[in-house]
């Protein structure tokens, strides 16, 4: 069982070799965004070209540094120098790039993005001066795009597991909880419940088996920061889970990811495996009496699986349908055992909070919103990407300064925040602060951090249709108000986008929405009217124009539309060659 000091010494030596050894270190982001941009092909080209040219380099696939708009980003660090980033590199660009920067020692123009590090590189701008970097405060994302997500020693070299070591050797579990409470950290999964307080509920339960569940369902379109953390720095999440386990007296953790997201799943599993191999998971962690196990579990495609009780059903292998509460998870969770459920981001803050102290964390942010928010910008925006910003920045700072506003100088028309169940805001809301209370007072939520931007070319009704279609598609069907209500709402909105809406539709939608809010079992149905409610609040005149004048202000409506429905094609379930199945089942035993 290696001690922390032994692990750290080994990690430091390896880091020294990487950054100041005898060969350049090349990093390329191949998270989902990097893959979509062509990063995988660039990595192949880098390896091939380096070999063909006889250049000795280390090539690492890393997560995403956040500036997705510049991907594929090739980050080359020569021994002892700063990192130089090249933007939008294609596989074809690679030979010339390596030839000039590594063979001829010249900085190629055109593709240079900037440098990052203490030593300036002539001819390249400092990334740290760009608003996309300068306005950030990277806590949970401190390693994203910098350390390899499949090498635990790179994490340890950057102070990884120092918080765990500190907690295990210097702190009692109650101290860890107190730090979390004092930090003011609130859950980043949507409901913004204080994380430390949630942990303290679990402490009170003396059951010998308790679970810490990590929610990486992240079905919200527009948000990719949870998957991003798993792909960029899964170790920080593993350490967060360990801290939660130690603080609450739990011995089991489950990281729960949606089937099909291969990158996040593979990287999470690799991180867990390496933690076991180095005595950071399992029995007697770091030579102490603390025992903790983590496994990665998968769900099928289901948005509602992200709801905390539905998630427990899915882990148990059932349909992911929410349970009624009480009993609450801290009393009766997965397999009936006391459980604590946190979002990936909430847990990923824990290591830095424990290492640097509650005071440090709570000094960042505003009002009752402490620390940072990890926002994902997408849609009509010049610099889409994910950014970790201190709470309290205004939406305008985030969208216009960091995001650069809509491309080609168009005006912002609409913002969609907090996932489909969140809400939309208009351009006049740009002075609102990123603050849980301020956002919800405005009729939107911060939720999981997705901010989708639409410019004046977008029809608010058409976008509402897609949001409502999503909510209909994803209703788990357990309760009637949500299942039928969502279907009705979609029918109304579709009718309006076909320019066949009727004057009574708006009032009828309100009434369906009220029933859903009052009668649904979980947040999905309770909030299912939100996309329409918020759109009506800010863009009611758009709806009226569609209904009364049979006209769409942007011309996007009135055409045939595609709305995927959550219904199985009848032919698939009831094909004629299906034979009755004979099997000894429980029912017939």
């Amino acid at each position, binding site marked *: 069982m290696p001690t922390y000091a032994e692990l750290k010494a080994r990690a430091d030596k390896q880091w020294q070799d990487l950054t100041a050894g005898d060969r350049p270190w090349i990093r390329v982001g191949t998270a989902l965004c990097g893959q979509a941009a062509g990063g995988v092909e660039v990595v192949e080209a880098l390896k091939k070209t380096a070999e063909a040219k006889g250049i000795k380099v280390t090539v690492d696939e890393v997560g995403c540094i956040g500036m997705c708009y510049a991907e594929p980003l090739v980050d080359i660090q020569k021994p002892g120098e700063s990192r130089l980033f090249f933007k939008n590199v294609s596989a074809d660009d690679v030979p010339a790039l390596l030839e000039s920067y590594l063979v001829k020692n010249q900085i190629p123009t055109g593709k240079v993005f900037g440098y990052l590090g203490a030593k300036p590189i002539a001819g390249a701008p400092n990334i740290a001066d760009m608003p996309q970097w300068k306005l950030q405060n990277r806590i949970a994302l401190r390693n994203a795009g910098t350390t390899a997500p499949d090498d635990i020693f790179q994490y340890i070299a950057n102070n990884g597991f120092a918080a765990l070591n500190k907690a295990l050797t210097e702190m009692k579990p109650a101290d860890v909880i107190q730090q979390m409470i004092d930090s003011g950290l609130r859950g980043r999964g949507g409901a913004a419940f204080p994380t430390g307080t949630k942990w303290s509920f679990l402490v009170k339960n003396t059951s010998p088996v308790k679970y810490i569940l990590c929610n990486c369902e992240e079905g919200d379109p527009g948000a990719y920061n949870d998957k991003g953390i798993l792909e960029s720095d899964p170790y920080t999440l593993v350490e967060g889970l360990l801290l939660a386990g130690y603080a609450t007296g739990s011995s089991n953790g489950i990281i729960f990811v949606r089937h099909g997201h291969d990158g996040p799943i593979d990287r999470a599993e690799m991180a867990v495996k390496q933690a076991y191999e180095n005595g950071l998971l399992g029995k007697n962690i770091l030579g102490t009496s603390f025992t903790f196990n983590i496994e990665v579990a998968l769900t099928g495609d289901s948005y509602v699986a992200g709801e905390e009780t539905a998630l427990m059903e899915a882990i148990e292998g059932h349909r992911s349908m929410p349970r009624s509460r009480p009993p609450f998870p801290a009393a009766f969770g997965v397999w009936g055992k006391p459980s604590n459920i946190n979002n990936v981001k909430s847990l990923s803050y824990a290591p830095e909070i424990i290492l640097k102290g509650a005071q440090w964390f709570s000094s960042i942010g505003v009002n009752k919103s402490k620390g940072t928010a990890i926002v994902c910008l997408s849609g009509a925006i010049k610099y889409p990407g994910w950014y970790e910003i201190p709470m309290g920045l205004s939406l305008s700072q985030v969208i216009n300064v960091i995001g650069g506003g809509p491309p080609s100088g168009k005006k912002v028309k609409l913002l969609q925040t907090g996932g489909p169940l969140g809400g939309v805001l208009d351009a006049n809301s740009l002075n609102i602060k990123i603050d849980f209370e301020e956002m919800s007072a405005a009729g939107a939520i911060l939720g999981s951090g997705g901010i989708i931007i639409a410019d004046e070319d977008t029809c608010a009704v058409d976008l509402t249709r897609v949001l409502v279609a999503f909510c209909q598609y994803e209703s788990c069907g357990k309760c009637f108000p949500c299942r039928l209500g969502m279907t009705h709402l979609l029918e109304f909105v579709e009718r309006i986008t076909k320019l066949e809406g009727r004057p009574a539709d708006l009032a009828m939608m309100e009434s369906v929405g009220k029933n859903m809010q009052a009668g649904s079992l979980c947040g999905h149905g309770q909030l299912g009217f939100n996309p329409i409610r918020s759109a009506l609040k800010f863009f009611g005149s758009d709806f009226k124009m569609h209904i009364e004048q049979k006209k769409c202000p942007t011309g996007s409506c009135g055409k045939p539309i595609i709305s995927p429905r959550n219904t199985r094609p009848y032919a698939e379930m009831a094909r004629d060659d299906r034979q009755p199945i004979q099997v000894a*089942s429980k029912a017939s035993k």
Partner: protein
Amino acid sequence: MTVANTSNEALRERIQKAITHQKRPTVTVLSSLLAVQDEIGYIPDVAIEEVAKFTDTTLNDVWGVASFYKNFRFTPPSAHTVEVCWGPTCHLVGATKVMTELMGHLGLKDEGDTADKKLTLRFNTCLGACSQAPVISVDHHLWGKVTPERACKLADKARESGPKHH
């Protein structure tokens, strides 16, 4: 008959192996179905039987789970799968056009399999690379900033390549 039986037995064996060799510790109805889906790309009737036997549950329980999650299908998939994201971000930047033109190009009226069974088209609520929207995936590899033309080209390329291995 014999031929059909042999291939059925071979299929059953593959399914049993997938179910009994799961690498994740918690084994459930859902995890077993996912293992089958990963192995052969769909959930045939024999898989329902085998999962029910293996997990000691009823056929109804297994059907209930299999028909709930939208990533399970019950007929063999085509050789390749193209998914198109219809999430709001992708929608805003042109997903509808990508979907419509792909459907036209493949001779489909909705998501489904092409007549030659070389390609399955699926719609996805979010492929997780919204910053690169519009996004499609071809056999699980993501492609961002796609135009309708590029999407059709990528689909054709997959169609012409050999069968994919599950």
